[in-house]
Every structure is written in C-alpha cells, then in structure tokens.
C-alpha cells in the first residue's frame, strides 16, 4: 500500500475530474458557455506538461552530477510523458478553438509557444537517436534538455505578456479571473491538475521499469 497509494489517488482524482468535470454547474460566460469544461481537460494538460518537464530537468541535472544512467531513464521518460501531454493539449486546444474562435489555429502567443516547445522536445528525441553510445547519449541529451528548458521558460512566460492572447482571461476576453474563477471550477481544477500529473508520473515510471528490464536482458545476452 505504501508504494502505490499515489496511484490509487491518481485514479480517484481522475474519476472525480471526469465525473464532476462533466456534471457540475459551471458559470455561463459569453463565448465560452459549456466549453469552459475544457479547463479540466485541456488547461490541465499544460500544467502537467510543465511539471513533468521540471521533473525531467531535475533528473537531467542529477544525471550530469552523478553520471548514473538510472537518472537518465527518468529524465527521458518524463520528457516523453510531457511530450504526450503536450500533443494531447494541443489537439484538445485545437478542437476547442474550432468551436470558440472558429479556427483550428490562430496566431495566439500561447499556441505558438506551445508548438515551439514541442518542436524543441521532438528535436531532443532526434538528438538522442543520433547518438549511439549510451553514456554519451545520456550526458549530451541532458545538456540539451536543460538548455532548451532554459530557453523555453522565457518563451511561455514572457512572450504571451507582450502580445495579447485570445485565451480566456487575456487581453480583455471573458475569463476565469475577470469573473473571479468560480469556486466550483476551482474545486475540480486543482484536483484535476494533480490527477493528470500523477497519471503522467505513473506512465513514466512504468516505462522506466520497462527500460530497466530491457537493459538487464541485454546485459544477460551479452554476458552469456
């Protein structure tokens, strides 16, 4: 029970998110209407993605300090999960945008920043595949992932503030802050962030375990 309590928590929170997220009363805001529920399924993806990237950077730094491949496994799998969340976030966002803004893609700083972020991390995967030596791969990709993260942070936090965004709550659009994000929304929003992030962590840890097993099997084959 000790080791997997957080997995139970993840399931409980996600079940709550899905049930409550679809059923609770939401405030009627112009333009948004019922699509405000995207808050629980789309906006949370970005929070999950950023949190998992932070974890990946943390393990990248740890790898650089110790040279231990176990940390590299964690770093790459958390990045993978973050990329998955990013792709899901962008697709859900595009569907939502089609119905609220009338287009799949608009020239919105948040959209562009997230697309650039994904480009960065796809490049990270290409870089990893181009290196054959495992130790070198781990070290160089850790360096790139930290460097890219350092460039990504100003992108998502500074650039949207310089040009107006179409997103709710930005540039005079009706949003959560303008009407003081309804306490009902908050009750689902925060648990949803935690739940999705835990799900991402769960996916990552399973994949890390697969990686370790594969490595063990490889070692066995080599040492036969």
């Amino acid at each position: 029970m000790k080791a997997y309590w957080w997995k139970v928590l993840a399931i409980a929170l996600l079940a709550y998110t899905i049930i409550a997220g679809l059923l609770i009363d939401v405030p009627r805001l112009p333009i948004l209407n019922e699509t405000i529920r995207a808050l629980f399924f789309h906006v949370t993806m970005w929070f999950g993605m950023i949190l998992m990237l932070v974890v990946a950077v943390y393990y990248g730094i740890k790898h650089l300090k110790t040279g231990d491949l176990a940390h590299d496994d964690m770093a790459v799998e958390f990045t993978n999960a973050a990329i998955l969340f990013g792709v899901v976030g962008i697709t859900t966002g595009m569907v939502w945008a089609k119905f609220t803004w009338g287009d799949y893609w608009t020239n919105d700083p948040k959209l562009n920043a997230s697309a650039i972020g994904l480009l960065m991390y796809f490049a990270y995967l290409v870089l990893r595949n181009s290196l054959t030596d495992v130790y070198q791969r781990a070290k160089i990709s850790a360096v790139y992932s930290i460097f890219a993260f350092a460039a990504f942070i100003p992108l998502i936090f500074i650039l949207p503030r310089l040009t107006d965004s179409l997103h709710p709550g930005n540039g005079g659009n009706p949003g959560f802050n303008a009407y003081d994000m309804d306490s009902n929304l908050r009750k689902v929003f925060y648990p949803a962030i935690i739940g999705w992030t835990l799900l991402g962590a769960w996916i990552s840890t399973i994949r890390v375990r697969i990686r370790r097993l594969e490595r063990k099997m490889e070692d066995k084959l080599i040492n036969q």
Partner: protein
Amino acid sequence: MWKEIVILVKKEALLEWRQKYAINGILLYVISAVFTAYLSMGAGSGSLQVPVWNALYWIIILFSSVNAVAKSFVQEHQARQLYYYMIASPEAIILSKTIYNTLLTLILALLGYVVFGVVFGNPVADKPLFMLNLLLGAMGFSASLTMVSAIASKAGNNGTLMAILSFPVLIPILLMAIQVSKNAIDGLDREINLEKILTLLAINALVTASAYILFPYLWRS
C-alpha cells in the same frame, strides 16, 4: 580567465584569417541569399513593405548565422581539441567562442543590412536603435548557436541536427529582435522598446549563463 579568453578569441580570429575560404564563403552566402530573395520577391527598390522587409532580413540573418556558427567545433582536429582541453578551462573556451561568434554574426548582419539597403532600399528611421538591436540579436544568436553547435558536434554534426536543435531555442530571441527592429524601422518612440530590449537582454543573459554552466559537462565527455 580574461587573459585566457582574449588569447582564445585572438586564436579564433587568426585561424579564420588563415583559412579565408570559410569566412568568404559565409559572406558570399549572405549576399547570394539576399539577392535570391530580391529576385524571388520581384520587387523593385522601395516597393517592399516594412514587415516583409523586416521578416525577410531576419530570416536571412538567422540562416546565415546558423551556417556560420555551425562549424565552431568541427573546424579543428580532434587532437587539437584535446590540446585545448589540457591547457584551457572549458568556461574560457565557451566564452571565447561565443564572443568570437558574436563578432562574426554582427559582421554578417551588417553586411546583410548593407546589401539589403542597396537592393531593397533602406527604410530604417531610427538607425542607432536598429544597430543596438542588431548587436543584441547577434549576442543572443551566437550564445545559443555556439552551445548548440557544441552539442551537434558531439553527435556527428550534421546540418539537419544543427537546424532542428537551434531553431526552437532561437525563436524567443528572434521574435524579440524582430519586434524591436520593426519599431526601429518605423522610428517609434524609444520608450516603447525599453521593455522589449530589457527582455532581449534578459534572454541573452539566461542563455549565456546556462551555456556557461552546461558547457563543462559537454567538454568533458
């Protein structure tokens, strides 16, 4: 440390001077890129709109600086790299390469500016601000590109890798530089640009600092 950096920058310049083909090649690259753009746009001088002028200019600078900086870590032999490894600290190496590449990128940008001015006409109203912006842009470009070229050189240094690794990292710098440059061309009040220039400086500082911290790990492997 500073002495070391000065010597290393001098060494880079000397090396470049000895094999002139590299620098001449990249200068010619800028000129032919501008000329290709000129012919493709089919625009006589003066008929190009300001946003297009601006975007085209920065795109050409972006591509030429990626090409110019890509060779930073491959033009020298493995054995010589090992020699530097023994006599110089990695921090001095990354800083000296960054400074040298800033100069190189600045020369490219200035040359591009002159050629652009000749063929497309020169719409820039606030020239000092435009120059300051060029300098800041060159610093940001070279700081990130030098680091990325060090990474790409470890991975066999193919051009594709260099491009895909560097473009997303460069975009924040490019966007800020393009906006400031647009305002400089229009000759808007300088107050408006203050925030953007500070942001650009902050991004440059962030990129340079992370390159400074991370490069030693790369250099050791």
